[in-house]
């Protein structure tokens, strides 16, 4: 199992080796998606060269606050997660599902072609690997797997990144989702920077990863490399910007639907849905049906939706969750509590995106803390 054995099979590549990795992936037909600086943020887009990566950039994050800053070193992965998550590739924000065309007597359904791209994701952190696993469970785990997700997920190549730079809103340690990526990748990189040396420790997680590593210049890793990588992860784990006490959290939230804190947070919540859009596990969608003016054609489009919209809970006669209070409660309770009932795990990976990208900086760790603190007795067993 990857992550179990210390140095066996581990390798070292340098910056040129990283370029060779990008080239090898490209030569095998992968479109590489990785971090890039655009519009004052680090987003996930196509990368072809090491020069495309956010060299020397980092980010400062807090509730409702994100700023790019210059680092003192030339780290390529010296930032934390940004506004994008990998879900936008596997579960596109807007996607036509099918079209229909009127024929003489009836109509014909025109299926959408499967995606042409095979992706390689570069720089996937442990929290994001956990999010991928959660979305795999949501989209593929039930009796009706999502075909579109399956087509995109199949053949995905994952280059994970052992996280060396947590942000002010990170709490993967609390969610036991990081910072170490132990499985679920083809290759995992740890960026090791020291004066005069810029190299990457490479762990192999799959036969496909092994094949690629064999095709690029590398040398065996030594015990010192492994010690440095371990120290980096330990440092990351000690620098979490947030924490969440998860003891008994399922009951804590399910047992207090009328807690006054829900009203208090509703006064601040904009119901703008940003938290759900940036969340790497939120999976809700809606469909829109459109017809052409002539009535000859129709099409159905799937779009990212959110439990913060009124239409989301629209049943015959109106919306069930009219108040922002009930919408925030629905989102947070689902994410941290009823997700266990539905999917057997928490829906939160501690990436902190919902805190950073909330325009008014609402912090679910703080909301959970407030509810817990207000109760006379600890509700956990």
């Amino acid at each position, binding site marked *: 199992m990857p992550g179990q054995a210390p140095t066996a099979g581990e390798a070292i590549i340098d910056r040129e080796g990283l370029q060779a990795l990008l080239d090898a992936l490209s030569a095998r037909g992968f479109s590489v998606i990785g971090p890039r600086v655009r519009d*004052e943020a680090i987003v996930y887009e196509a990368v072809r060269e090491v020069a495309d990566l956010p060299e020397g950039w980092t980010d400062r994050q807090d509730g409702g606050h994100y700023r790019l800053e210059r680092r003192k070193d030339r780290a390529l992965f010296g930032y934390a997660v940004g506004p994008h998550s990998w879900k*936008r590739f596997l579960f596109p*924000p807007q996607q036509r599902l099918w079209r229909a065309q009127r024929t003489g007597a009836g109509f014909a359904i025109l299926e959408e072609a499967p995606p042409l791209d095979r992706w390689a994701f570069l720089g996937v952190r442990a929290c994001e690997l956990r999010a991928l696993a959660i979305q795999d469970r949501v989209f593929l785990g039930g009796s009706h797997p999502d075909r579109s997700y399956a087509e995109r997920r199949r053949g995905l190549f994952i280059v994970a990144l052992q996280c060396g730079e947590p942000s002010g809103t990170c709490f993967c340690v609390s969610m036991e989702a990081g910072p170490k990526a132990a499985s679920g990748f083809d290759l995992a990189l740890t960026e090791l920077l020291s004066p005069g040396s810029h190299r990457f420790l490479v762990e192999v997680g799959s036969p496909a990863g092994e094949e690629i590593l064999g095709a690029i210049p590398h040398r065996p890793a030594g015990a010192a490399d492994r010690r440095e990588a371990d120290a980096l992860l330990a440092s990351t784990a000690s620098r979490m910007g947030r924490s969440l006490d998860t003891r008994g959290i399922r009951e804590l939230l399910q047992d207090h639907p009328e807690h006054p804190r829900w009203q208090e947070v509703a006064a601040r919540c*904009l119901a*703008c*849905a940003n938290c759900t859009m940036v969340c790497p596990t939120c999976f809700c969608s809606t469909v829109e*049906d459109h017809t052409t*003016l002539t009535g000859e054609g129709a099409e159905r489009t799937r779009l990212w939706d959110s439990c913060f919209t009124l239409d989301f809970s629209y049943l015959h006669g109106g919306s069930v969750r009219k108040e922002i209070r009930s919408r925030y409660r629905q989102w947070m309770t689902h994410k941290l509590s009823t997700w266990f009932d539905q999917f057997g795990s928490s829906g939160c990976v501690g990436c902190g995106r919902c805190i950073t990208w909330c325009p008014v900086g609402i912090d679910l760790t703080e909301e959970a803390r407030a509810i817990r603190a207000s109760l006379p007795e600890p509700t956990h067993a």
Partner: protein
Amino acid sequence: MSNPPRPRLAVWKFASCDGCQLSLLDCEEELLALAEKVEIGYFLEASRKTLPGPYDLSLVEGSITTPEDAERIQEVRRASKKLVTIGACATAGGIQALRNFARIGDFLSAVYASPGYIRTLDRSTPIAAHVPVDFELQGCPIHRFQLLEVISAFLSGRSPAIPHYSVCLECKRAGHPCVLVARGTPCLGPVTHAGCGAICPGYARGCYGCYGPMESPNPPSLSLRWRALGASERDLHRVFRTFNAAAAPFRRESEAHAD
């Protein structure tokens, strides 16, 4: 000809700049399909030829600002099977609803040499304040694709797929990093109705609310954030007092901040 009669469409103008009607003319290639599908019975911006009512679908642009228009909208409603209002003027009173916050007599004496000739109401009001409206399409101006969607929906007897949530959903789907969070640029997107496709944030500008309030806006919370980003009370007073100044959530928020 054995074809069934085409539905008769009318486009009406009240107090407005004509921009929303122009959105219909901007449809260009779709306009030919529309002209085949409907009979344009009344659309003075496009043609002097008019046909009598009743009209199957009336699109109404503009707000009510004169006693004559208050009468005329009643006639339009009586002549229309379905009535859809288009744009900020028709749905919220428009920029001319700034008069609602001042004395109309002061404007008249400042603007006109002989104010005695002017007969006007002291408030600009949306169409729905006067007659029942079947659907309201927000925006200043409206988006032509949304207009086509509404027309297509009415022609085929289905609900228009026009979401009423915030601009943020469109912005995030488009992949724009949030200008408020990543740049500290004040943005009205979280309280503003979707429909534009998040044009301004896509150009690194803050949303200025031209589509009016979203379905469940929380302007007081956003205003606190704007204050923290450096906006003054006057900035807040003014930013909520533009094309949708008289829409209740924006009106209340502008009144909560001193000029």
